[in-house]
């Protein structure tokens, strides 16, 4: 059994295909909770889950406010809300101001996950065009979690992963395939 309870993944511009590859590589009985915080158009509420689900074996849902967090599920931050991991192993949503021009903000999701899961969290940041996620990943590191960024050489837009590497001493810089291989070792 793995020591980790949850994986949180942040991504923005250029991350959709990478996320699709990752979620479609995880088996239906994957024993961790997977939380996705991806920048998305705020006024388009539906379609994203369906697109990600096409090849995925794990169920993918946008969590409702107060929804209990379960293992074996993939949770996608819904449009136009921030997504927090709240005390008591459930999600909380929020309509506070955008952070880094983003709602959902990757930093905010990562802060709350880092605080609640401590060393039982794997934080992964993928391709993206701004710095949202850098302070979040730093917070995962500071709380004892494992930090991974997608190799900037492979990223369509490397700004976000480079910002992470500037903000903290990232544990691993991996290609998409190595991220997948690693996640499968946690089974």
């Amino acid at each position, binding site marked *: 059994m793995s020591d980790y309870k949850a994986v949180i993944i942040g991504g923005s511009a250029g991350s959709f295909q990478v996320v699709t590859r990752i979620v479609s590589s995880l088996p239906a009985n994957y024993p961790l909770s997977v939380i996705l915080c991806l920048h998305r158009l705020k006024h388009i509420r539906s379609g994203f889950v369906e697109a990600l689900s096409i090849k995925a074996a794990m169920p993918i849902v946008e969590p409702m406010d107060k929804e209990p967090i379960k293992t074996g599920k993939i949770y996608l931050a819904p449009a136009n809300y921030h997504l927090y991991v709240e005390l008591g192993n459930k999600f*909380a949503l929020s*309509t506070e101001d955008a952070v880094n021009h983003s709602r959902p903000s990757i930093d905010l999701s990562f*802060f709350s996950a880092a605080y609640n899961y401590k060393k039982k969290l794997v934080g992964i940041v993928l391709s993206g065009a701004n710095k949202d996620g850098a*302070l979040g990943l730093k917070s995962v590191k500071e709380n004892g979690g494992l930090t991974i960024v997608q190799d900037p050489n492979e990223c369509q837009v490397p700004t976000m992963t480079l910002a992470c590497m500037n903000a903290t001493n990232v544990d691993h810089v991996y290609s998409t395939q190595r991220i997948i291989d690693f996640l499968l070792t946690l089974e």
Partner: protein
Amino acid sequence: MIDNLGIVDTKKIIAAIHESYGLDLSDYTLSILKRRFAHVMSFYNIGLVDEFVSHIKRNNIEYEDFLDQLMIDTTEIFRDPSLWRELREKYLPEIAHSSGSKIWLAGESSGDELFSLMVVMSELGLSKNIRIAASCPSKNRLKRIKTGYGYDLKKMEIGEANYTRLSGKFEFNRFYKMDGNFALMNPELLDDVEFDNTNISQEKVNKSYRMILFRNMMIQYNLPLYEKVARKLIDNLVVGGYLILGNMESLEYSEIGKKMQLVNEAEKIYRKRID
């Protein structure tokens, strides 16, 4: 701004607020409170939690000023255009049929929901058929709402884009005027609105409404308070009346929610069942 207040510090602040202001935040969502406290501290240029606590205890920050900063701006005028379209095309004309119908906006913080509703009502020409009540716990904020609030341009752009998405009947700019860098909504939209400072999480209410809008407010509460507030909202609805929550909120974690039927899942419109 402090990014990650710990639970111990957050609880210290909650206790000081309760002691000094009589405002009980102990059943509010911690993730949100942490961010709000950090915001208030940064607004008052306070770096340390102990310093913040002592300011609160010594009443250095007036309650109304504190509350003003603590509350969340509810993000957008016409947030979720698809809801406003539903209201305009179906629900508002329906409830306008019954005489004396009354709608309650039970938790206004920045007037977004109120101005959105009043614009739609003016499109329908229903302003005289349905009475509107709005509660805003903050006196400062209520004062701003009554004079058009003053939104920044970014917010007005979003509001205008949303209004276009719901195929608004008018040009959006007829509803506001510029005052320096800020946009003031036309206060005449609010001529027939009854206002009060009720805070539903802390006070009793005894009314009967045909519709209550309370979108993205339940997210602030932990389960016990959420249950309590849900009960108050439902108790203040007539049978057959509607409760509207945010599109990612739900009554499914509450006992009292069984009294309600979900009639529009995408927009979280609930209808009160006959007992």
